[in-house]
């Protein structure tokens, strides 16, 4: 629901009154209708569903507050047994299940089932067609699998089963589906390259994908799709695109417990209780940057943030800070340390740090002598941050102060949730 708020909604005002049982559903309906108008303008296709989204339920509205969620997503009330009158969005409250979304489609994994809806003109919803869907619909092609992870890119999607199989569908014109060709698919197809391996997680960017594989001794990351800015990390040189997975260099001898993905706007990630490893992929169109946090260390490859040049395979940043979480936007990254401090990389477009407070804290040693500028976020003195999240051009965090959420950055589409469309340069 949050994602659709970034679409054209000029002249419309969100109702912020809490009607019992209908707050998120109402926003969802309004946003989806607006989204559908935009889609119709472009595609001249009627959305396959066409019917109104039902009110979620008449139960009291509760906002989910577990740490496994992006702070900018709203969720319908948890239901174990959805009644016949409510739509088929039932969230099983298992803390280990990730919930992911993207700019134009949402994947919700509920008990191993996958539901998708939103923009689907590239076949990324996996329903066997190329139309949008207003309502969540199960991905029937995956019904015999228990899906544990999913990721939504700009025009493609990836799904991982508990048995380590990877399925992809949607636009494949950049090789981002990993099937060895440049064709698109409108139903999830198994990535045979990994048939004898165990894929743990998939992240889908704008025109590329990264897969995390678990091994007995070490873990690996494979990239495929567009690699013009080094976002695949698979070669020391510039590459155009690859359609079969290639291993990301420089990450050998690492144990990677989990990877996280910033879809286009909305981030999802998996946090395991004991682990602090994380890997983020930025889905900038072609210009992706990937941060990997392994053992608390920061690895960077792809498009350089701010003024730094591109790096084509992971380089470890020499920095005295230990990071536990990262979130990537299209031009910035947020880094969270173990003691609850937030730093920001880049961010010159919107919500950048005000210059007087910008401090250079990281010297990124690489062959190209990059220097990543990391600045401390202002207005957070004494506030402990529990979680960070990033949209394309805005940021959000959850504080330890009664779970208060703060946002900053680009506000034109109301994505900061502050009741207006102003930009903010520091957390509000």
């Amino acid at each position, binding site marked *: 629901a949050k*994602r659709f708020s970034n679409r*054209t909604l000029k002249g419309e005002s969100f109702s912020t009154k809490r009607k019992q049982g209908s707050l998120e559903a109402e926003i969802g309906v309004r946003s989806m209708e607006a989204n559908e108008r935009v889609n119709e303008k472009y595609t001249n296709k009627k959305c396959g569903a066409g019917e109104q989204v039902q009110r979620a339920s008449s139960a009291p509205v509760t906002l989910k507050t577990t740490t496994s969620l992006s702070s900018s997503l709203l969720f319908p009330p948890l239901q174990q047994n959805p009644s016949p009158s409510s739509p088929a969005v039932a969230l099983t409250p298992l803390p280990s299940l990730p919930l992911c979304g993207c700019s*134009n489609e949402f994947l919700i994994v509920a008990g191993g089932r996958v539901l998708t809806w939103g923009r689907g003109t590239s076949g990324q919803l996996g329903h066997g067609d190329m139309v949008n869907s207003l309502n969540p619909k199960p991905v029937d*092609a995956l019904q015999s699998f228990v899906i544990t992870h999913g990721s939504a890119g700009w025009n493609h999607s990836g799904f991982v089963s508990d048995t380590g199989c990877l399925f992809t569908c949607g*636009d494949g014109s950049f090789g981002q589906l990993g099937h060895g060709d*440049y*064709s*698109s698919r409108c139903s999830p197809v198994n990535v045979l390259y990994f048939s004898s391996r165990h894929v743990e997680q998939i992240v889908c960017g704008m025109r590329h994908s990264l897969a995390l594989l678990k091994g007995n001794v070490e873990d690996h990351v494979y990239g495929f799709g567009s690699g013009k800015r080094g976002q695949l990390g698979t070669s020391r040189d510039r590459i155009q695109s690859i359609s079969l997975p290639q291993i990301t260099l420089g990450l050998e001898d690492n144990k990677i417990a989990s990877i996280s993905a910033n879809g286009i706007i909305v981030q999802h990630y998996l946090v395991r209780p004991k682990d602090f490893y994380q890997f983020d992929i930025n889905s900038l169109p072609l210009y992706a940057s990937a941060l990997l946090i392994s053992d608390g260390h920061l690895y960077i490859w792809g498009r350089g943030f701010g003024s730094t040049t591109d790096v084509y395979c992971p380089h470890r940043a020499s920095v005295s800070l230990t990071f536990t979480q990262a979130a990537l936007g299209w031009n910035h990254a947020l880094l969270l340390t173990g003691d609850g401090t937030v730093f920001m990389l880049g961010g010159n477009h919107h919500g950048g740090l005000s210059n007087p407070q910008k401090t250079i804290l990281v010297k990124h040693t690489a062959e190209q002598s990059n220097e990543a500028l990391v600045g401390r976020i202002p207005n957070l003195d004494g506030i402990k941050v529990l979680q960070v999240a990033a949209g394309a*051009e805005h940021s959000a965090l959850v504080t330890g102060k009664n779970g208060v959420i703060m946002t900053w950055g680009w506000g034109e*589409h109301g994505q900061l949730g502050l009741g207006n469309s102003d930009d903010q340069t520091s957390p509000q």
Partner: protein
Amino acid sequence: MSYDDVEIEDMEWNNELQAFTYPCPCGDLFQITKDELKLGEEIARCPSCSLYITVIYNMEEISGESDHKSKKSIEPSKQQPVAVA
């Protein structure tokens, strides 16, 4: 201020819109038509927000752009059976 500089070869031709497009962070698409490019226009706007990008191209690239991007296959394959793990 331009949001980004994008080379024309990185943009995607959209037949319905009859324009070169590029993803906008708001979720919509930056768009510029062939006619605009031929006139020397280099700003691709987003219909949903205030952002715009600067398109990098040579005039020669534009004149011969009739079947641009046709090499990229965009037809979906028939529904393929999913292999059992």
